[in-house]
């Protein structure tokens, strides 16, 4: 067969998640480069990346993936950015019996009830996000209220978070429309629920995309001794963290945190090329690339789907976040998350998360949600 391996990367080149998609793409290319030592070949086979733009539209993503497998003869595909698109893509992978490596779409159901055996995911899922945060916040005597977007992404997160909370107590769940701009009402509800609670009071925020939930602080939460906590996010979004020195939470990635050669390589390469540090989804893309190359090396360049699957199940590989492992059951890559505390550093436009504690994969038990 030909001495070329085609990999389709389908992501939001345009559309609402364009910024995210771009990061993934950068990371993915850097990753391939690093993993192949700059040769872009595995066992003498050239790696060709075919990029496609799903514009954040599920229907489009679906037909693009089909086209990638059928017309472009891609051996496997990586992406997409949005969970909606990902979920629409899953059956296509099954139809064509080809692998889809999901990155960075987060919805649990991708490796949950919508899953099929052709699906792997290097990106973290909502549960990992939530549970890591739970681990970071779960202390006795803490009262927590959650603030999340009123759609799958938000509700998944809160649910997983709740399941993982053992010692602290959840006093209220607030869900606001995705496009909320004025947070006064929601904040007021949260305050009313929290203000009379004893001990430490925390509002845990899950929010992706536009809108700025941290405005709730304008209502002067301090007077009731209420703190805000949240997960990590892309750097521009973390600009608003700067107002909350000491804020705690757990993040998927921040370039300053992981200490390992791969991450150093990524950061160095990224500074070299863009004069800026790599961001949230850059790391994700990089990890995906590492996974692909590791797998192909193991199979000796054989792209037979079944061979790949059997190789990848249980496979461990290095990433900027240290070693990840695809667990057999649902092909979700288990990985470390980072418990951080925000420091306002004038040198940076954003609030700098400082490592409190690396939450090892072993410290979180991420439920297996697919029926297999």
């Amino acid at each position, binding site marked *: 067969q030909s001495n070329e391996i085609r990999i389709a990367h389908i992501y939001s080149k345009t559309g609402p998640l*364009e910024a995210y998609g771009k990061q993934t793409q950068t990371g993915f290319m850097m990753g391939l480069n690093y993993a192949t030592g700059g040769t872009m070949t595995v066992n003498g086979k050239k790696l060709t990346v075919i990029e496609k*733009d799903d514009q954040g*539209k599920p*229907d489009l993503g679906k037909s693009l993936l089909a086209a990638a497998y059928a*017309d472009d003869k891609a051996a496997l595909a990586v992406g997409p950015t949005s969970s909606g698109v990902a*979920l629409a893509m899953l059956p296509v992978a099954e139809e064509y019996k080809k692998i889809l490596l999901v990155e960075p779409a987060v919805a649990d159901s991708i490796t949950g009830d*919508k899953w099929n055996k052709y699906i792997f995911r290097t990106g973290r899922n909502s549960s990992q996000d939530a549970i890591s945060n739970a681990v970071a916040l779960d202390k006795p005597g803490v009262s927590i209220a959650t603030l999340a977007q009123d*759609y*799958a*992404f938000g509700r998944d997160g809160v649910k997983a978070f709740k399941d993982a909370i053992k010692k602290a107590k959840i006093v209220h769940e607030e869900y606001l429309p995705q496009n909320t701009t004025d947070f006064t009402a929601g904040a007021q509800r949260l305050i009313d629920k929290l203000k009379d609670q004893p001990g430490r009071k925390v509002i845990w925020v899950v929010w992706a995309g536009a809108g700025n939930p941290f405005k709730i602080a304008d209502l002067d939460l301090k007077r009731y001794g209420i703190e805000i906590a949240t997960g990590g996010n892309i750097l521009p979004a973390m600009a608003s963290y700067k107002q909350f020195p000491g804020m705690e939470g757990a993040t998927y990635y921040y370039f300053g945190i992981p200490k390992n050669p791969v991450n150093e390589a990524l950061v160095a390469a990224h500074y070299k090329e863009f004069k800026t540090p790599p961001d949230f989804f850059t790391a994700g893309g990089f990890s995906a690339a590492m996974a692909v190359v590791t797998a192909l090396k193991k199979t000796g360049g054989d792209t037979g789907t079944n061979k790949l699957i059997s190789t990848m199940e249980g496979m461990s590989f290095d990433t900027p976040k240290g070693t990840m492992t695809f667990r057999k059951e649902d092909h979700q890559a288990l990985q470390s998350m980072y418990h951080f505390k925000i420091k306002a550093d004038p040198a940076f436009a954003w609030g700098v998360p400082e490592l409190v504690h690396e939450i090892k994969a072993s410290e979180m038990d991420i439920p297996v949600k697919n029926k297999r």
Partner: protein
Amino acid sequence: MLKRLLSNDLPRSRVLAVLLVALLIALAFAPFIFPGVKALSVAAKVLVFIVLVASFDLLLGYTGIVSFAHTMFFGIGAYGIAISATRLGPGWGAVLLGLGAALVVSLLLSLAIGLFSLRVRAIFFAMITLAVASAFQTLASQLSDFTGGEDGLTFKLPELISPSFEFAEEPFLGVSLDGRLLCYYLLFVAAVVLVLALLRIVNSPFGRVLQAIRENEFRAEAIGYRVVVYRTTASVLSALFATLAGAMLAIWLRYNGPDTSLSFEIMIDVLLIVVIGGMGTVYGAAIGAALFVVAQSYLQDLLRLGNEAVSGVSWLAALLSPDRWLLWLGVLFVLSVYYFPTGIVGRLRARAKR
């Protein structure tokens, strides 16, 4: 014969006639002329949009009602199929049931809206439909355990029209004879029938009364036509056709979600197509839809070439980058309003007159 099939509304322009025939042939043999999964899905999308746009033109071009709620009915059709297929599993029964239910819902909704339209002035009506449509979209994403919310619904359809089904071992003319092919021709037939039906409707006495109402509602009433009846009938009809278009879409994609069938974006595309094609001409809808959908689908590839061509000049490259394809779509919007005030069909017919 043909004349009657076209309800005696002939292209009235040789160029137009040629275009239409070409389009018909292209769509009829798309799977064989343009191989590949992408090409086929573009062709299918064209079919769906021809019906959708034509149905909208009945409302806009012929009756002069500006409504932004049209995609709502498109969505209802799509969700009808999606939901029933998800709940009842793959089977013709589910498809028909879903379709039926959707048609009923659309009927009631369009009746309500149609009657409301008489209470407020045109421009207010347009704005209200705009709001209602966006409300409906939010609703669709809110009722997630019913509609699958933001993520939408992925579902299976009867074996016969699913890609997995192969009714002949070896491919014919390099095209594998599978369910996808059958599905395409199902859409094709549906589209042809629906368009001819619309053509008949707009050329019936009913159609003429609609035009009269568009021109001068007051006088139409004064010479004895019950405007309410006609407007409402028109709204309902166009809603039903839109619903059918929606069902076609869902059947083809075997997926449906808010952005796929309810987004304002689609509404605007439809508006544009009507104008490019030529308002108040069903043929315009067909030509316009084909042009627009193809342009939209291949614009990015086109830009990729252009972008490589000018990769030297940084700012130009930035503008021509495939990621900025929307920019050029916008330009297309502006230009088509500039250069096709009466639409392609209008132009061609005017030329034919001289």
